[in-house]
């Protein structure tokens, strides 16, 4: 067994009650992640595609940062309304739900990343990346896709945002006004 990712989605209503919870097996690391890993390990720069669709040369010292702060939709876990099946060459979600409290928007919380939890009985370990999205738009919003976007960092070379995971939810989720949606990627290894 190798690296697996699980996607957990949870909707909490305005009273704090969990009204929806599902856990799926994520399937969709995309090629950008592999290219970034290759360039870091080989020291050979190759091209990636950023979230705007532009090609750029990966810096050998580029990072894979995902722990974005709140009220920003440029990287970390992103959500969207697109319904296209993910492809290995995807560079962004099909239709990103932007950060905000206007119609069709959700307020992005800060991304948290937990360190590795290991279970020596089952020989497994995982890290978790989580973000909460709050709907204060005034009406319900339906979420159908999720992704993880990384930032290369801005101190070294490229300062780019690039998609590394893209998942289409098996069932779209309706988030009522006043409710929040929590998305977690659990990246797991098993020995």
């Amino acid at each position, binding site marked *: *067994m*190798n*690296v*697996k*990712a699980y*996607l957990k989605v949870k909707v909490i209503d305005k009273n704090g009650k969990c009204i929806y919870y599902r856990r*799926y*097996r*994520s*399937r*969709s*690391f*995309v*090629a950008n992640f*592999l*290219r970034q*890993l*290759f360039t*870091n*390990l080989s*020291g*050979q720069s*190759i091209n990636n595609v950023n979230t705007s669709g532009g090609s750029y040369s990966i810096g*050998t*010292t*580029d*990072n*894979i*940062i*995902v*722990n974005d702060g709140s009220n920003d939709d440029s990287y970390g876990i992103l959500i969207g309304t697109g*319904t296209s099946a*993910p*492809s*290995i*060459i995807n560079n962004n979600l099909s239709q990103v739900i932007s950060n905000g409290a206007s119609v069709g928007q959700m307020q992005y919380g800060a991304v948290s*990343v937990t*360190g*590795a939890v*290991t*279970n*020596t009985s089952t*020989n497994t*370990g995982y*890290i978790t*990346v989580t973000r909460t999205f709050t709907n204060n738009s005034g009406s319900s919003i339906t979420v159908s896709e999720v992704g993880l976007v*990384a930032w290369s*960092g*801005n*101190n*070294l070379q490229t300062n780019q945002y690039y998609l590394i995971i893209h998942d*289409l*939810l*098996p*069932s*779209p989720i309706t988030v009522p006004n006043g409710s929040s949606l929590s998305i977690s990627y659990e*990246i797991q*290894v*098993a*020995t």
Partner: protein
Amino acid sequence: MERMRKPNIDVYLTVMVKDKNGKVVYRRRYKSRSFVVGFLNALYTNFTSPPTAGQYFLDPNIVVGSGTTKPSISDGGLTSQIGNGTGAGQLQYGTDSLTTPITNLNNNSASFTWSKSFTNGSGGNVTVAEVGAYISTYNQGNILAFFILHDLLPSQITIANTQVLTVVYTITITT
């Protein structure tokens, strides 16, 4: 709506032995089973890197050993790593080499290979029973190594004097 299928990142391990004339005398390909927690720790370091710190991966390093203990999630290295050199029981470590990723739109996959050769100049046989790999992260001048893969070979391989063992990890993602 399309149902999510199984992912994700798979690793295949190919081991090959060539004699002194370059003839392949042994070749096997396995599905590697054994990412260990070091991979997650390295990924965590990168995921949470402060933008001004610049933490990134570097220094891939495939290693071989003679240990026969079953890999564990918490392993921090091979059970018994074979040293680099030409002394008894040693192998001469080559350079880690990576090939440019190939993307296949027909099956929505992408992969690259990571390989290294080990030459037996010890004068006697050397038996290899386990394979593993390290990567490092850089953080403002400090380099920290993480042991990320540990595989016990289904069958031990005896490398005769002058023979060359090549280990290839093929890392594949499928969308």
